[in-house]
């Protein structure tokens, strides 16, 4: 027990000082930990890129990039093996085009309806259903495509098999709808209401306002929505693995069985010998996929940012 008086004050001050110092040290430590975690997103993204480069690039010593990209023969297990990814690339392109052709008009139309026309009650019923769609796992969508859609497509187009690019594209269009609808709807909502009021004041009907004021005003946001939908379709794996048909030839029509890039990786990786040529080739496909989706997302981000700045005064 300390004597009351001056000495207590000084002792307390000393205690407080040392406590505070320890505190500050602890906080310094915590804050640097927080900073490191903040960097984690960059670390993982760069990590993915480095890994793909490290495991994938060596294939180009065996197959030159030109032959890899434009070769039409993928025979990973023959002697000697050949690696040409044109069939996969064309397949990815086909299913993505089919998916986008369906999802964009439907998705943007739905977004315009929800943002401009629908009464609050309808919107509050429809939006959870769209969220529900976004939550359905891709393997379930693949299964539905396998069981329900592919027999339908087969009989409608009189095909040998319903497992083809068209079926995959239709399923993918469903899967890219939620993001197209939500991003387009946000973009439409961001158009200031003064613009609409001005159009009404000039005597425009509601539809004319939507058509000539709202949609042009939200156009870059809608473009970003489309790009994000395309990115989704390019990267989707399970659905195309299950319903696209898995044929190794370059497809000439959407109604042929085909194997998009994601499916090629998923179906080959189990058999590929670790660090063998086949393995390296699959990582190189992964690298191309990564680059494609990265480019699409970066552009979409830039476009969205511009859209956001557009109406800020």
């Amino acid at each position, binding site marked *: 027990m300390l004597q009351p008086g001056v000495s207590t004050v000084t002792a307390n001050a000393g205690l407080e000082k040392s406590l505070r110092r320890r505190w500050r040290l602890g906080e310094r430590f915590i*804050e640097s930990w927080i*900073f490191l975690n903040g960097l984690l*997103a960059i670390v993982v993204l760069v990590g993915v890129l480095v890994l793909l480069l490290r495991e994938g690039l060596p294939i180009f010593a065996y197959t030159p990039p030109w032959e890899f990209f434009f070769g039409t023969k993928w025979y990973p297990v023959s002697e000697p093996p050949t690696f040409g990814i044109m069939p996969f690339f064309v397949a990815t392109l086909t299913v993505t085009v089919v998916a986008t052709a369906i999802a964009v008009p*439907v998705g943007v139309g739905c977004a315009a309806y929800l943002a401009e026309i629908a009464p609050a009650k309808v919107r509050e019923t429809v939006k959870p259903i769209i969220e529900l769609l976004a939550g359905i796992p891709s393997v*379930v969508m693949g299964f539905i495509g396998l069981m329900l859609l592919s027999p339908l497509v087969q009989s409608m187009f009189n095909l040998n098999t319903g497992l083809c690019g068209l079926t995959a594209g239709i399923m993918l269009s469903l899967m890219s*709808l939620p993001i197209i609808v939500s991003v387009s709807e946000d973009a439409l909502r961001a158009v200031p209401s003064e613009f609409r009021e001005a159009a009404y004041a000039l005597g425009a009907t509601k539809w004319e306002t939507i058509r000539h004021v709202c949609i042009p005003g939200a156009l870059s946001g809608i473009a970003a929505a489309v790009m994000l939908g395309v990115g989704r379709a390019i*990267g989707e794996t*399970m659905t195309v693995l299950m319903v696209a048909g898995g044929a190794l030839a370059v497809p000439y029509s959407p109604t042929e069985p085909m194997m998009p890039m994601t499916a090629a990786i998923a179906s080959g990786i189990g058999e590929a010998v670790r660090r063998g040529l086949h393995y390296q080739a699959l990582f190189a496909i992964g690298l191309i996929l990564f680059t494609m989706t990265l480019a699409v997302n970066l552009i979409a981000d830039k476009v969205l940012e511009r859209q956001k700045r557009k109406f800020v005064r």
Partner: protein
Amino acid sequence: MTSRTMVSRQLSQRTAFGLLMLATTIVIVPVLFIIIYMIVNGAGAISWEFLTQSPSQAGKAGGIFPAIVGTFYLMLGTLIFALPVGVTAGIYLTEYARDNWLTRLINTAILNLAGVPSIVYGLFGLGVFVLALNFGMSLLAASFTLACQALAMTITTSREAILAVPREYKEGSLAVGATKWQTVRHIVLPQALPGIITGAVLAMSRAAGETAPILVVGAAFFLPGLPQSPLDQFMALPYHLYTAAAHVPGMPKSTIWGVALVLLVVVMSFNVLATVIRLRARKRRYG
């Protein structure tokens, strides 16, 4: 303006609105159809035995208990690895980061992380966790892989939750002499908790349905028992569904529909849980 053009303008408006409504119908009808169809077809297969017994005859008979347990292990593993770092990153971005090039770079990275195809995460997991770190094809490797994929989501949702905490609370805390970290720890985090939990539950739901990555890093179609350690291989519902539907000839149809329905119920119930938490928190804050 003549009345005739007015009529035609009204007509074109009606046609256009009809088309927009049709688009909305095209979006929602398949969703409802898929879900109802799955319930109708899958409900018959689901029984107590189906949910609680191990598979037999190479998966063609018996239950799917190990796949259900494996999926819950994966969800838990993803949560353990992705949530703490995600929340911490969210704290950094909202409370500490300045508006400079580094922060912009981090935000761009998060955005792009969310867009990386799931199969590419699978390759990443294979190269890093399975091979380089030598975890083998295992529950641990799969959890880490799914956690990397979930990272973007846990960071974004934590950031949003923290941003929504009213500024006055923080200012009050700082005004009575609390340090920045004390304010974060005692004021910001408790307030942001419902939002953070919502994000965590969504990330778990996502992890439950994810198939492509675990196909690469270690799911098995048929194992006699449950994994005994994190380094064991495991069964999981989405991989089970994929293999049963696409690779096992003679698999009873009702079983496959049953697996699909169980998976859908697991994923959806976590989605609903997240929504409920979000709505309750909003109610508490805004009355």
